[in-house]
């Protein structure tokens, strides 16, 4: 079954097209790397798929549901880790997870939430406000928040951002776990070697257009002194 199907996707900010005629399909359970230069449209693509923003043109279906017509149903199936962490700074790590648990009608008890924090290595900071956390710790907490959703389609925008080497391994383990569970994952990243090793497929965006879609192992190498493009299809 196709988990994500996009066709003719366009989104613009002012006069600049962030996405132009982007179309692709992702089978259920696939792990897909989304890459490209800064400003190539990776985050915009993930935010359109997550229903955080609307496309100006084109269609997207997530597990058969149209993101425009059936927004609520899509939101029940997706989880987004964005550049912003979706956390409340004055609340503690535990309170942030409790808010999400209550909205999702999950167990907001301390033990259950501590177990979640343990997974991301933050159990010892459970009662500290997020505003005292470093950027890497916030990213870990955002990952814990994302895991609470138990979504069928997970969208990760630079999940390795701000993390230390153990944090990198944490994300690697998370991706392997999601793959084992059959979760579909789209991950925007600049870490090409890591992406190639972990992902089945790759999407390469260039100035809002899809420059490559295929097996991650066949993804072209970046070229140019500034890494400004990809060897094929750019």
């Amino acid at each position, binding site marked *: 079954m196709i988990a994500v199907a996009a066709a003719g996707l366009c989104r613009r900010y002012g006069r600049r097209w962030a996405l132009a005629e982007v179309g692709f399909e992702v089978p259920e359970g696939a792990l897909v790397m989304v890459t490209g230069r800064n400003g190539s449209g990776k985050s915009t693509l993930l935010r359109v798929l997550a229903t955080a923003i609307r496309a100006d043109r084109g269609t997207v279906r997530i597990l058969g549901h149209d993101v425009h017509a059936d927004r609520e149903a899509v939101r*029940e199936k997706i989880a*987004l880790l*964005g550049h*912003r962490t*979706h*956390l*409340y700074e*004055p609340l503690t790590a535990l309170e942030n997870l409790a808010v999400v648990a209550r909205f999702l009608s999950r167990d907001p008890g301390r033990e259950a939430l501590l177990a979640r924090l343990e997974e991301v290595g933050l159990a010892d900071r459970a009662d500290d406000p997020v505003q005292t956390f470093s950027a890497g710790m916030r990213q870990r907490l955002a990952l814990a*928040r994302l895991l609470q*959703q138990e979504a069928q389609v997970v969208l990760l925008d630079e999940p390795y951002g701000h993390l230390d080497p153990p944090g990198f391994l944490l994300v690697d383990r998370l991706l392997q776990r999601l793959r084992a569970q059959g979760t579909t994952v789209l991950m925007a990243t600049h870490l090409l070697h890591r992406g190639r090793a972990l992902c089945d497929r790759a999407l390469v965006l260039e100035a809002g257009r899809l420059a490559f879609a295929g097996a991650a192992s066949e993804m072209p190498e970046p070229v140019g002194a500034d890494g400004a493009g990809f060897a094929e299809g750019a």
Partner: protein
Amino acid sequence: MRSLLVALRKDLLLQWRSRTQIVAIFAFGAAALLLFSFAIGPDSLALRQHAAGFLWLGLLLASTLSLAESFEREMEEQALEGLLLLPASARALYYGKAIANWAQLALLGAALVPVTVVLYDAGTLRLVSLLGVILLGTAGLSAPGTLYAAMTAQIRGRQTLLPLLLFPLVVPVLLAAVKATSLLILGDPMGQLRPWATLLAAFAVIHWALGGLLFSRVVED
């Protein structure tokens, strides 16, 4: 209803964590009342006559700080967007926030009453009625105020824009609340309090209903 209670619990917790800010907003309101009293001068009759107007002006000015602050926390790390994507009902999020804002403004209004009594010699024995007017008036401020605070939270220059949008809309609340409070302080020989209180209630009902309907359009792309 369950989502509303979850949202309200979250907003009350956020307010509690930002309580130093609430004290600062109260100090701002009290300072405004003090400055208004200087503008009138030492004439105790004039002070008493204008007390209700200045109480509500102080509360209105302080409310813009309070309402804008309530969305600061939502926008810092796009936490509101995170809740919408869970998905949480936009309507529940609105009513949770609006009720929390109402509670804060009502508390602020009640706290400014003793300041008004001291500065303007404007006491009343009808304290329950005064509390009722404060509750109705702040309900009329918090419903549209929460909606407009959400609207302006993502815009540069929001501190200016929020009062520019909100003040013209809440003129009926200000007018009715000032008249009702004046009647309580200065006496109500003609029994005019009820119509003004009814106007406040009608305004609040309309704007609480409208806010719930419009909030998702304001916060969604």
